[in-house]
Structures are given as C-alpha cells and as structure tokens.
C-alpha cells in the first residue's frame, strides 16, 4: 500500500507549489514594490541604502526566499505553459534542463549579489 501513496503525481506537486508560491509572492511582492517605489523612491537608491536594508537578517532571508520562490514560480509557470502547448518528448526534457540551469544560475547570481551587500563577499 505504502508505495501507492508515496508516488505524489508530479503534475500535482508542481501545481500545488505554484499556488503556494503564488500565495507567498502576493505578500512579498506587494511589500517589495511598496518599499522600493513608494517608501524609498527608486531613483534615490544607492548601494549604501540597499546594503543597510540587507543588514537586517530578516529582510535578507525574506529577499532570498523571494528570489527562490519567484524564480520557481516564474520558471515553472513558463514550463507549464509550454507543456500546455503540446511540448513533449525530448524537446521537453531539453527545455526542462535549460530552464532548471537558468533558474539555478539566477538564484546563485542573486544570492551572490545579496551577499555582496551584506559585505560577506
């Protein structure tokens, strides 16, 4: 019986994660936009300002999570859209590979930048 339940259908997981990340993003994206466009104005942004915000560990972690969820959500969304248009077989595997690598690169790059702000790199 056990293995019957353990095989969480991949379509289902992705679907669920897409919703969960969306719910998370609603909050964070709104916060992010508000903070950087209305509280602090975008044209006043300096390295120092950003670095100061990054000092706060809570903010830092939130931003990293923001990055990861947004990347997953966005890339998974794109991948899904392509599948819905009939992408299958080998091309599909290739697309999945490319998208995964691109996401990982994006996340890595983002984390690197964030660490720079924290003065850790």
């Amino acid at each position, binding site marked *: 019986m056990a293995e019957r339940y353990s095989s969480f259908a991949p379509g289902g997981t992705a679907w669920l994660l897409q919703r969960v990340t969306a719910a998370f993003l609603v909050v964070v994206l709104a916060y992010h936009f508000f903070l950087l466009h209305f509280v602090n104005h975008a044209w006043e*942004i300096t390295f120092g300002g950003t670095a100061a915000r990054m000092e706060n560990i809570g903010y830092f972690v939130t931003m990293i999570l923001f990055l990861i969820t947004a990347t997953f959500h966005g890339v998974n969304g794109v991948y899904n859209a392509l599948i819905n248009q009939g992408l299958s077989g080998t091309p599909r595997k290739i697309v999945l590979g490319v998208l995964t690598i691109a996401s990982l690169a994006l996340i890595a790059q983002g984390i690197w930048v964030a660490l720079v702000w924290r003065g850790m790199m």
Partner: protein
Amino acid sequence: MSQSYNRGLIEDFGRWKEFSAGMWAWIFHKFTGWMLIGYLFTHIAVLSTAIAGEQAYTNTLQGLEALFVVRLLEVGLLAVAVFHILNGIRLLMVDLGIGLEAQDKTFYASLIITGAITVASVPTFMTEVGF
C-alpha cells in the same frame, strides 16, 4: 488535436473576438507572467552591478532612473505586476472553488483595479525625472 488541413486563423486566436472573460484572463495572466519572469532575470542582472563595486551600482541605478523610458517601463511593470497579483488571487480563489459563478466579474474587477492603481501611481513614478 490534429487537423486535416490548415484552418488558419479560424483556430485559436483567430477567434479572439469571441473570447469570453475567462479566456482573456488566461491570456493576460500568461502574458503578465512571462513579463514578470523576464523582468526578474533583467532585474538580477542590473542588481549584479553591485558586484563590481558600490559606485558602479549606484551609478547604474541612478543613471537608469534618470531615463524617461525606464520610468515609463516601470509604470508598465507595475500594471503588469498588479494585474498578475490580482488575477493570481482570483485564480487562487477559483482553485479553492470560491466565487466560480462570478469569475467574469472578478476578472473585470481585476482590470479596473489594475487601471486605477496604475494611474494613481503615475505621479510617484514620474517625479524628478528629466524631460
């Protein structure tokens, strides 16, 4: 499904005039989603200038912000993001089975609110820019 011959525009988007609310919402959501992920990549690229040093970062950002186009694009981004958020919330509700009968109304509401927020934010975005 396959086709025995090409029916050209009859298929798919050739019939856009007949699309109902749900279809439009789907198309807009797709469109805005792709814009957002595109922006995310660009965004990180721009921010990466920080790696090259404090000054480079500040200059790049402020240089960009000084451009009118960038401001315009930012307003566009806001519109795109707001719509995606609002419609995303609508979709989450649909997933939970809430308010399915009103799905068209909530879509129109998303559009209107997006418009309102975008217009209201124009002054903020457009201050202190040249031209």
